């Protein structure tokens, strides 16, 4: 008896392999490199891994004009996945920059970067998933890394709690996804997305149940309401660079996969899942925006804002048309930049004060640190969907997709949600500029604020993407278009 080896398309796997290799190397760094050089070596290694993946994913996108599957049909090799990988790798690279100045314990620092890389590798693999097995594998791969990352800073109050909450609720999400996958497999007898789609099923109630559970499982990862309850605690408790990475890269991975899975595997149930996704989108918009109004802690506020943005992007998913796919890819570009950047600025203030950042102790920040202040201003306006930021064009495309689907009421929901969100996004600007820090009599911890060029350059990169995506819409939309062509729409 011979075991048949599938042909392995190493190039198709190269982005995730590059980051994974970095993760493996960093584990060696943790034991081999002397302590004083460890942090530098670890950060450089993780950065190199992400940058390599970034480049490889661009090459992969360029060389995969036609969507194919690879390695015994277990992963996709197409632009939809490759573009998502570019985004994930970019988020990872910026997260490395943001992490540098964090006060890590030296004995954990290499493991931290190793886990960050492992999570990135998992996401890069996850977005390529083409059957239910690789889907689940990828999901668990990056989730487990993130659970540990949330809890890694044992000196941080709430970090352990964040990790535990994320672990338990994340495990429920994974279990739901797994159960759903089992039901789908049970009814169709197929694992591959396109084969499930081709199996042709006539409203088997088990299949519908399976679909519902798969959607719920993915919605946990995208932190969409009503599956969002872990988000505020995990985002607040986790070390801020980890939060930045979760808010950007995890969202990219979860939403991109959700869209692909739904349109590829369940075209026959489109009339069901579009409504389900629209419902989840409305719930996320409502919960995220209303809860954010009451927050004083900035990380928590941004956590709720990320829930509401999951809602906006799910509108694009619910539209289930080519315009929606384009809208989703486009939206993710400025969105991930704004999330990373905003949490990066929060991290800077946090390191300056040594306490959690609230709207009150943000006072005067804009005047003290002009560059970070202006960047934060741009990120908040971007979240709000103001012109001069890509957030505006993103919202515009999402609304256009909803309209093309014939759901103008989703536009109204989105518009009302945006009006509500103005209150808290502008509250951040107000806190930074309209009040003087003298009013609070806050003394920064340890004299003048530490200069952190790496963090500033990370935030700067995010600022460039946020504003640049407003002006360079056409090239980005072309990219999104060619990515969306890989989907059967």
């Amino acid at each position, binding site marked *: 008896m011979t075991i048949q080896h599938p042909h392995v398309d190493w190039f198709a796997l190269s982005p995730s392999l590059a980051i994974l290799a970095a993760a493996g190397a960093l584990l060696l760094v943790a034991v081999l490199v002397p302590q004083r050089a460890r942090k530098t070596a670890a950060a450089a290694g993780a950065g190199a891994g992400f940058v390599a993946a970034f480049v490889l994913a661009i090459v992969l996108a360029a060389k995969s004009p036609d969507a194919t599957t690879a390695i015994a049909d277990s992963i996709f090799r197409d632009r939809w996945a490759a573009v998502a990988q570019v985004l994930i790798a970019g988020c990872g690279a910026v997260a490395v920059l943001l992490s540098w100045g964090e006060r890590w314990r030296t004995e954990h620092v290499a493991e931290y970067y190793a886990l960050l890389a492992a999570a990135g590798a998992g996401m890069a693999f996850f977005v390529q998933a083409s059957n239910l097995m690789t889907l689940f594998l990828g999901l668990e791969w990056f989730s487990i890394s993130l659970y540990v990352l949330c809890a890694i800073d044992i000196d941080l109050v709430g970090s352990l709690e964040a990790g535990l909450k994320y672990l338990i609720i994340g495990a429920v999400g994974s279990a739901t996804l797994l159960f759903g996958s089992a039901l789908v497999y049970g009814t169709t007898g197929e694992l591959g997305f396109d084969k499930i789609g081709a199996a042709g099923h006539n409203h088997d109630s088990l299949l519908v149940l399976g679909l519902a559970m798969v959607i719920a499982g993915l919605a946990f990862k995208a932190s969409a309401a009503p599956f969002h309850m872990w988000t505020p605690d995990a985002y607040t408790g986790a070390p801020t660079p980890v939060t930045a990475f979760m808010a950007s890269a995890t969202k990219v991975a979860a939403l991109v996969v959700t869209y692909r899975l739904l349109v590829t595997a369940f075209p026959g149930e489109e009339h069901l899942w579009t409504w389900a996704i629209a419902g989840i989108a409305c719930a996320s918009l409502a919960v995220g925006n209303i809860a954010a109004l009451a927050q004083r802690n900035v990380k928590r506020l941004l956590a709720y804002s990320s829930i509401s943005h999951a809602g906006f992007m799910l509108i694009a998913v619910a539209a289930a048309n080519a315009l929606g796919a*384009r809208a989703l890819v486009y939206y993710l570009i400025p969105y991930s930049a704004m999330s990373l950047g905003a949490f990066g600025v929060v991290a800077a203030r946090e390191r300056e004060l040594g306490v959690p950042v609230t709207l009150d102790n943000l006072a005067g920040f804009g*005047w003290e640190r002009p560059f970070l202040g202006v960047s934060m201003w741009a990120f908040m*306006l971007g979240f709000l969907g*103001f*012109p*001069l930021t890509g957030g*505006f*064009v993103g*919202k*515009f*495309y999402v*609304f*256009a997709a909803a*309209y*093309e689907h014939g759901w*103008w009421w989703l*536009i*109204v929901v989105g*518009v009302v949600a*945006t*009006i509500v969100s*103005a*209150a808290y996004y*502008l509250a951040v*600007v*107000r806190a930074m*500029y*309209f009040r003087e820090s003298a009013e609070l009599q806050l003394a920064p911890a340890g004299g003048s604020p530490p200069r952190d060029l790496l963090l500033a350059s990370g935030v700067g990169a995010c600022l460039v993407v946020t504003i640049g995506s407003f002006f360079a*819409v*056409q090239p980005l*939309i072309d990219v999104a*278009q060619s990515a969306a062509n890989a989907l059967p729409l």
Partner: protein
Amino acid sequence: MTSWLTTILIFLPVAAALVVWLVPMPRQWVGSLAALLSLVEVAVWIAAVERFDFTSGKLQLAQRHSWFGDLGVSYHVGQFGYSLWLVGLTAVCGAAACLYAWWVGRERPRAYFGLLLFLTGAVVGVFVAQDLLLFYAFFEAMLIPLYVLIGVWGGAGRMRATITFVVYTVAGSLLMLAAIVVYGLQQGTFDLTRMGTSGNDWLFLGFAIAFAVKAPLWPFHGWLPDAYRESPVEVSALLSGVISKVAAYGFLRIAIKQFPGPTHDFRVPILVLASIGLVYGSLLAFRAPDVRGVIAYSSLAQMGLITYGLFAANSLGSSGAVLQMVNHGLISTTLFLLAGMVERRAATGELALLGGMARGRPALATVLMTTGVIALAVPLSSNFAGEFLILAGVFQQAWGWAVIGAVAIVLAAMYMLRLISAVLHRQPGPAVTEAALDLRGAELGIVVPLVALLVALSAWPDAISGHSFGTSSKQTAAYAAPAERR
């Protein structure tokens, strides 16, 4: 026919703002540099006037590039006659505001002047954008500097003022965004010059409410008193002088031109709101306890009058409305700057504490008197010409509107004369001391050109009213026709 002139008009102030923000320079230079660059903007506008062909009512100085093609959105800018005048108003008032801020000396000058210049650029952008999404982008971009200008440099009540201002305007403009998305996708393009007209009432309302908030029209004026009172005085000047005209322009260029059917259907309700605003605003201005309150509420009334002219939907009304927009812009800017000068001398704007400032202060008295007299529309003034055209236009709709308008003009005389006498005449108020000097040379240098423009317009109002829609009567008729057709 591509012309860079319009693009330069938009981006010169924006580039100036970037220079002020980014280029290292001594603090003292900032104000003078900003003022200089704002005057360059005026010069560029004069160059645009020279190249403009007023006989044609067509879009001129236009430039068009695709922005993102799949939805038909483009960078398309250009000017009609009336846009040219409004751009000029923006440039002149923006320069006056910069000069005044330089004279007064604001804290954190780099941020302040940068934002002021950025605001000027955004407003110019609104007046020249010929693509709906571009229009919206500039419309919203105005809010960014305004929010901070009021919030950081405003008076004691600035927090409340900014919140109300932002809530009102964001709510209005996002409704407009929804309308823009639907309208543009229906038409397959967002280019205003290529879009067909629409008969959809909801879309019309989406636009109309956004403009009604921005103008403001009664009952959407809740943000107005706080914002006008708490802003730095030159920002109030721009708000009431220029930014309220954005709304009137929006009615003219988008609501009326693209939605002839709904304009016809909603004419009476809108004229009713305008009448209420006209009378109510005038009465409030008559009762307002402070200088800025009088100007703020008179602005509400004047916007009602301008709306009258716009929704009269004939060439008389529209020409009068454009003339009145420029008039009111200049008057309001001048009055706000004068209010600031009075407040600096008396440390208050309360009318009860002022008075008797004419004695020993001839320059202040002359300038305030001249502006006030033009504002109350004495015959031969430019305001008189504008209001006459508007009333004549609205008379053709129904004589009742003209009666209300005429009554309001009487009310305007009442509140203006009350303002003049409360500041200049009577016994010197407790806040007015001998130490309060007459207007200085620099201050005169800012307000006298504005007043001179008003006097020049009084001599030749036809410069604007006859040069806004093309001088050949056919063009004017063609403009008014869509609304009259039904």
